[in-house]
């Protein structure tokens, strides 16, 4: 399409899964936050009509369906699905706020950007743990 993309660049297409995992583990924090942003977005996209909207529907439609949610969420497997969605939402939210700040040229220097990337991962995981403990009835 554009002439800027016409220059030949080296391509590495024979990566194996273990090599890929090493590559992922060596990524800087900002890269990890970025790929988790994409993964959590894809997760939310898939869960939207399959879990999130049906759940919303049951919660608002009638007092009976509202009460029946307690039965759904009593299933441990369903709790794990919910926990994944909760993490996905929290990570996507926190990382999204960070991207908005970066877009406004706030915290673009290397050190701050790495720190904020780490903060996104830690804060979203910590909030997931707090809500997860609530979900599993610890508090």
């Amino acid at each position: 399409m554009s002439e800027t993309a016409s220059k030949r660049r080296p391509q590495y297409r024979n990566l194996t899964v273990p090599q890929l995992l090493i590559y992922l583990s060596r990524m800087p924090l900002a890269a990890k936050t970025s790929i988790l942003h994409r993964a959590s977005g894809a997760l939310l996209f898939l869960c939207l009509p399959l879990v999130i909207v049906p759940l919303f529907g049951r919660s608002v439609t009638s007092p009976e369906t509202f009460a029946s949610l307690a039965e759904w969420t009593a299933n441990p497997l369903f709790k794990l699905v919910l926990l994944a969605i909760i993490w996905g939402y929290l990570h996507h939210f926190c990382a999204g706020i960070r991207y908005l700040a970066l877009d406004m040229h706030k915290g673009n220097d290397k050190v701050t950007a790495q720190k904020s990337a780490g903060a996104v991962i830690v804060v979203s995981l910590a909030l997931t743990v707090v809500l997860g403990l609530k979900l599993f009835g610890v508090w």
Partner: protein
Amino acid sequence: MDQQGYGQKRLVVGAHYGTLDFIAQRVTGVIMAVYTVVLLLGFLFMGELNYENWRNLFAFTCLGLPVGQMLATAAFLSVVWHAWIGVRDIWMDYVRSAGLRLFCQVLTLLWLVGTVAFFAKILWSL
């Protein structure tokens, strides 16, 4: 064309070159973030968690207008527009065959439009 293919003088081709998508992704993101905070505040101040109070978060009216449903609709359309841009980016990055990519994008659109209809039916039945 000169040699410089980057920076301010880079060659920019194609219609609008993704500017609308770039801005829409950010604006819809802000709308969702604000709605999250609004819902959270509503949840914290609604009193006891029961069906009536919960339903009211999405179905409250103001001066005869269905403001709760209007806000939820605006927020949900933001979700879907945002999701369209993000998922389309994923296909653009990883699916190299143009035919398969188009197929994935059409499926994505059908998935999202169906979701909008599903959500609208629930919300506007309140």
